[in-house]
């Protein structure tokens, strides 16, 4: 007969500690850092908090811990679905990658008689046909 309970280990107190999830950080100003993860979630942290996060000494009852956990900067025993959630978010955020390029531009010449200040092209004068796309290139 199978007991309707799980193993004893399942009912023991949850193991303390957490693991980091991928993120990057950079200086925001002299005292603060901004940490950003794979899906664009972000958190502003001071240096002590950032270091505590990475060194695994961040108290789990600190408000910033819950914020970081909800934004998928870390996962503990209670949040093991973070990996699947992150993958889903990455997939949604970068779905265009799978669609490859949808816009194609053909620059057939650099010659132009305008002088638009915002133009990114190094325009050429109208008599410089060397900057035209040749028929062989177009083929």
């Amino acid at each position: 007969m199978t007991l309707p309970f799980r193993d004893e280990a399942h009912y023991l107190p949850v193991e303390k500690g957490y693991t980091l999830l991928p993120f990057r950080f950079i200086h925001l100003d002299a005292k603060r850092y901004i940490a950003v993860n794979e899906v664009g979630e972000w958190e502003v942290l001071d240096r002590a908090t950032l270091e505590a996060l990475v060194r695994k000494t961040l108290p789990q009852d600190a408000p910033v811990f819950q914020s970081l956990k909800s934004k998928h900067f870390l996962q503990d025993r209670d949040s093991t679905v973070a990996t699947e959630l992150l993958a889903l978010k990455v997939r949604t955020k970068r779905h265009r990658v799978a669609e490859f390029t949808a816009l194609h531009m053909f620059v057939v010449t650099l010659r132009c008689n305008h002088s638009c200040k915002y133009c990114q092209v190094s325009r050429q004068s109208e008599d410089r046909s060397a900057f035209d796309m040749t028929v062989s290139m177009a083929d």
Partner: protein
Amino acid sequence: MKGISRESENCVLSLDTAIYSLEAIKRTAYKFADRSSVVISPSTGSAVSVVFNFIGKFAANDPEQVISDFCNELLDQDLRETISRETTPLRNLILAHAFSRTQLADED
């Protein structure tokens, strides 16, 4: 500042690669390329010498401030290495999971 010496116009910072990886030191040096050219050379044991040749106004201003900023950035690079070491396998797993069944790769 401790660990810094002067050689004519240049400042020399001594770092131990048992504490900071060479990769972290190089990444930091690259980030400071606008303020100083940096030459990293082996020293005694696991130590390396980081020679600063300050550029433009940074030579006339406070070179020690630049070196102080360099040390802070080195600590940041060290943290980044720790994060990368711990999360790279997970990151690859997340990306693999995210892009599975997208037909990005040729199955043949």
